[in-house]
């Protein structure tokens, strides 16, 4: 076939393809008609063939590039990532995330050790000798923390409470989630950044806690921290685990090439970080609106303990499928309709706690 004749014959198809692409790009996937899709994929395949023909016969760079562009556009149009829905996100949070964390629990425990050991050490040290505490953390900060926990934070739930707490919730989301994400991302330096972040946070928090114990604000502080601490501290450790996982993929590729290993570990790590981010948003809401409420401390301790239990159940049993088994047993017992909107228990528990 002659080049000129080839162009003349195929051009109408190319133009049709271009027109179709432009039309379909403007619409959402669900509004594409079946006929258009069929026609588009037919044309796409024939243009792939045209491109390989032009490539093999070296019919000029311009023609090749034109067809190359058409193929690239068609490729991007036809090979999309699967449509994403809220369901996928929810099922990731309820099942995928806890299951992934359990599979990578070693990283969780290492991160926990990196956070907890300096925390406990600093706490004990600061509780015994506050002079040492002042060496670790600014005295100003310590004083400020002590003064804010000397008295109850609030006497009443009123409009002032609502306002200040909303402000603080925003701050907690911005600050804590930011810390967690940064803790994960710094794992890209062979995990070193994550280790440093975990150690540093453990030291600082431990020092402040120890100093508060020394000052005798124990009750006020722990009744405040216990509720949101469940989600917050766990999430920080999980973010640390994500960073360590990322670093581990760089340090120890195992049977994969380093780049492959990085990809495998990276995707898992970012999933953990996303889960940690979600937990921190939950924590921020608890810390913002529940923790400082003017209610008896006994209630706070009770709810706080329960929340730790919720976190434990969520991470230990989420995604095990136990709920489904239980539900199917219920189904068999007689209520056939229950299957329709079954939801894993962990999510509903978490949601109700929010």
């Amino acid at each position, binding site marked *: 076939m002659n*080049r000129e004749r080839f162009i003349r*014959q195929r051009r109408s198809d190319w133009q049709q393809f271009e027109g179709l692409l432009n039309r379909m790009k403007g619409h959402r996937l669900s509004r594409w008609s079946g006929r258009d899709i069929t026609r588009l994929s037919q044309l796409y395949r024939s243009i792939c063939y045209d491109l390989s023909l032009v*490539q093999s016969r070296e019919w000029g760079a311009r023609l090749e*590039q034109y067809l190359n562009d058409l193929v690239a556009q068609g490729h991007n149009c036809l090979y999309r*990532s699967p449509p994403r829905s809220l369901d996928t996100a929810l099922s990731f949070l309820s099942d995928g995330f806890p299951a992934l964390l359990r599979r990578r629990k070693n990283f969780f425990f290492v991160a926990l050790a990196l956070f907890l050991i300096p925390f406990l050490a600093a706490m004990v040290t600061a509780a015994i000798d506050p002079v040492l505490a002042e060496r670790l953390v600014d005295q100003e900060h310590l004083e400020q923390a002590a003064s804010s926990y000397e008295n109850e934070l609030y006497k009443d739930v009123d409009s002032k409470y609502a306002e200040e707490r909303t*402000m603080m919730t*925003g701050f907690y*989301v911005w600050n804590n*989630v930011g810390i967690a994400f940064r803790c994960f991302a710094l794992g890209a330096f062979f995990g070193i950044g994550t280790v440093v972040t975990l150690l540093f946070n453990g030291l600082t928090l431990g020092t402040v806690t120890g100093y508060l114990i020394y000052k005798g604000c124990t009750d006020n502080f722990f009744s405040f921290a216990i509720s949101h601490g469940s989600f917050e501290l766990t999430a920080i450790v999980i973010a640390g685990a994500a960073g360590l996982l990322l670093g581990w993929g760089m340090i120890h590729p195992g049977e994969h090439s380093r780049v492959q290993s990085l990809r495998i570990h990276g*995707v898992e790590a970012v999933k953990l970080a996303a889960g940690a981010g979600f937990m921190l948003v939950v924590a921020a809401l608890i810390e913002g609106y529940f923790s400082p409420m003017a209610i008896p401390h006994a209630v706070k301790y009770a709810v706080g303990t329960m929340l730790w239990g919720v976190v434990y159940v969520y991470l230990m049993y989420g995604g095990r499928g136990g709920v489904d088994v239980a539900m199917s047993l219920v189904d068999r017992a007689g209520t056939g309709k229950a299957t329709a909107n079954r939801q894993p228990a962990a999510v509903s528990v978490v949601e109700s706690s929010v």
Partner: protein
Amino acid sequence: MSAKQKVDTRVTVETPEGVDFQFMIAGPGKRGMSFFIDAIIKVGFGVLAFLVFAFASGVSGSVSGVAGGAMLFIWFLMSWLYGSCFEAFWHGQTPGKKSQNLRVVRTNGTPIGWFEAFGRNLLLVPDGMLVLGPIALNTVGLASMAATSRMQRLGDLVFDTMVIDETREFISRTPGIIHGIERIPRAHCVGRFHVPERTLAVIERLFEGDRLISAGRREEIARTLAVPLKKHLGYDDGGPDAANPNAYFVRTPTQHTDFLKRILKTFAEDSAGTDEQSVKVDVKAVLEESRRTTMNAVLARRAEANRVAGEPSDNVALEDSTVADEFESLEFVEEVDESTNGGHPEDWRSKL
């Protein structure tokens, strides 16, 4: 591909159809520009939100707490989720990337998913770092881009993505290059009157508009092509005309370039109105004829089959249309009127 030394930033991707096609990788310049635009949008939006809330609290006097909370939350969204959300829901583009015609895709050319978009944006933290110093100058990211063939920063490496440049450049022959050039008469050539397609393609490349070649250099290159071509065609330009030798010698500095232009005019340009046209009509008629006979044969066979199966014969009328559909592909593609499709990039001939 790896064996070849590359001089540009194209990356070859193989489609499931088994065809290789190429993406242009975006360089640090364009990516820096899009990063800058995104940064302005982020900060701008944050400041706008601040002003709105400040104004609102100024008016009512007491919304400051709620406003501050919302403000911090917006600032959180802007700093951590802006890039991820846009790239996840906008097929790999942020407003900045869109303005520069950039797009994030996986290295196999497919669009990125949620977690890739999220992860590669989180890794902006290490990528944005200057190794020594407090200001984010993207040193790590730039170093990583310089070290990888697909110009990937750390976030791209980990999540197997790359940023491609979708700007479409139409390289076209300088318009009017063979305007007013005469064809080479068949009678001047004693050899075979034929130039292979590949040679024509090479000549065309020499005249592509994006090439910055001086006339002298083009003549030099043209010489290496023109001399063997003349030999191949057995072309003899006859030397200077005895009556007017000046015209011949004036042309000498560009004689090879001119010769190649004449080759293009003669062999690459569509020879409308020559005997090829009549052949084409014949082909069309023959195709039409063979299509009709085949279709009749198929119809007859189906009718026969239906008769044997004892089905009502009016089915045949229904079948008619499906058979016609089947033969759609056989239909001879109508000649497109060149003058009517102005915007077609390949249609450089209309500019000649």
